[in-house]
């Protein structure tokens, strides 16, 4: 049995929106602290790593094919492949790798 779904949505929306809004509202002065500046500079890259990393290792049948897929995708993406091309070839790489190594 579930309660009022609109109440849940309201709570979630309020919490999420405030988290996103507070810095934009209250950070009025320019950030001068060099340490904080470096910290914020790294946040996007670190976020990328964290969103990619535990997830990708369990996305395929095993760790090694996941790394093979990741490597393939990274190289293709680095060389300027489109999202479609990168996805398809990375999937193929995983498939072939699993086929070759584990039959």
């Amino acid at each position, binding site marked *: 049995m579930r309660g009022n*779904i609109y109440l849940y949505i309201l709570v979630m929306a309020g*919490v999420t929106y405030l988290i996103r809004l507070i810095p934009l509202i209250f950070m009025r002065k320019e950030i001068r602290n060099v340490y904080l500046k*470096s910290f914020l*500079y790294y946040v996007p890259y670190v976020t990328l*790593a964290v969103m990619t990393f535990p997830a990708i290792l369990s996305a395929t049948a095993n760790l090694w094919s996941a790394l093979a897929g990741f490597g393939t995708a990274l190289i293709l993406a680095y060389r300027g492949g489109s999202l479609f091309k990168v996805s398809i070839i990375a999937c193929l790489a995983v498939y072939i790798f699993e086929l070759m190594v584990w039959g």
Partner: protein
Amino acid sequence: MLREKEKQKRVTEDKGFLYGLSQSFSIVIGYTPVAITFGILATQFGLTFWEAGLMSFFVFAGASQFIAIEMIHQGATPLMIGVTTLIVNIRHLLMSLSVVPFFPERTLPWSLGLAQGLTDETFVLNTNVLKDIDREENRRRVMLGINIGAFTTWVTFTIIGGLIGKWLPVQFSGFQFALLALFIILTASSLSKKNYMTYLLAALLAVAFKLLIPGKLYLIMSVVLAAGIGAWWRGRKAHQPGFDVPKSMP
């Protein structure tokens, strides 16, 4: 030759809402299957397609939505949902802080609008795109375009997924892959000699924390720790001669 340069300059100056919208295309491809999956799962957990769409509209934070529908189904209280949402989404506080330097002269309506569109994906794409745009006014419009592209996709395909889930009893898995491909493309376009060590450190920390700590707490922990260590390391190097701050730093 000169005219060519002027033309080039005008093109970069004119980047606005539509440019942002076109940039959001990679997120559109990444979000579509995930949003459809969310819609299907939400209806399987007892929400209507309409309620799923409302949740996507007002919350717009993928991971917390997936967790919430499961918890609601299991009878969690609104307080539990609120605390979980806070833990899962607190990382957006750092992201919001990181985009602040791009908009020193923002007004309240802009803050209110841009805040709603901030997700992991739009944040990374925005920081990637915005650093090449000179005028703040254009940066705001570009970010609005990127956010609206992502937001519309998320909401629309949640509803479509909800409708599919209502009429077709399908079981869905493997939805994560499209998002992973998106992350890898963003990684390839933003990693450099200046930041790849922090990236690797964050990846290792995330894997380790995920193994050690249940739940989603590992996200914020590895972000804070890796960025903190990166900043500390750079601070040490900054005291040595010959160190220069990267250009892309806002």
